[in-house]
């Protein structure tokens, strides 16, 4: 599946600086249509209003965490096919296993670089 760089991407993180970093990295990779949400519940609301081609989410957020968002997305018939990448400082094996079980498409541990982000996006879209 070829990557459509015009597709809207939703990035979810409670840390504004991280949103800015990911937005800039996505811009460098070629994605221009990038929206932001500060936690899972805000992201879920945006996903129900707009169809996103990719969600990149942090794990540790309040009030709704990234893993809760992922479970909500996978349980929703209209959203469950949305590619979902977890970008997080949660770097324990049990976290990766829980995310995989919940249906995450890829998992990036912070800190990361543009190369890793691009490689994981490519992998999700089979490039």
């Amino acid at each position: 599946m070829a990557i459509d760089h015009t597709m809207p991407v939703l990035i979810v993180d409670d840390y504004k600086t991280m949103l800015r970093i990911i937005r800039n990295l996505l811009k460098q990779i070629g994605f221009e249509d990038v929206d932001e949400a500060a936690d899972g519940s805000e992201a879920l609301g945006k996903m129900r209003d707009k169809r996103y081609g990719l969600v990149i989410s942090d794990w540790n957020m309040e009030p709704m965490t990234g893993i809760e968002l992922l479970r909500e997305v996978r349980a929703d018939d209209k959203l469950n096919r949305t590619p979902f990448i977890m970008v997080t400082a949660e770097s324990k094996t049990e976290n990766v296993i829980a995310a995989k079980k919940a249906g995450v498409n890829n998992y990036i541990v912070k800190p990361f670089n543009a190369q890793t982000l691009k490689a994981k996006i490519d992998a999700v879209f089979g490039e």
Partner: protein
Amino acid sequence: MPARRVDRALTEPFDRVRAYVDAKSASEASFSDVVSLAEITADSMQAFFASIDRSIYRELRDIADYITRMRDEIAALRAGELKSGRIATAGEHLGAIVTATEQATNTIMECAEAMMSAEGEDEATFKAIVNEKVMEIFEACSFQDLTGQRIARVIETLENIEQRVGRFAAAVKTEGDDQAGPETDRERRARELLLHGPQDANVAIAQDDIDALMRG
């Protein structure tokens, strides 16, 4: 009062009464025998109550000593100074660290964004922008020196608190008594949602291992 001492104080008068009655068992009891028995009983009970008084006094004195010792140890904790002085200052340092790192990060990112936006400019303009922004990045990186000093002070405060609490725990003999309290809502949420936060490098799983888990 120790139980053995109480038992002895109680049994002794009865032993004395029994011995007197045994000695008089062959004859009828006279008025003087009754008076003698009353005297023995009164004398014995006086000893009994005196022993109780001494024992209670000793116990109260032990409790008073313990309270005095605790008061000294609590004073040595200097909780007031910790709360209004060291901990408050450490909190201010941490707040300043967050602000300084945020400011530096924003400055660095603004510089990077400005350089990215300058790509369409002519070569001389582009070079001038890059030079200017690179200098700003160098300046912004000086935050590390200041935050390093602040972090050192916070560490010093934590060590000081650890020392005082350790001494107090030793004084009240609670060292090693590390039973966890009831789980708070926050702790339960963290446990259920696997919120561990950043891990030390020697504990954290590497990206390559994560990739292997995702493939597996």
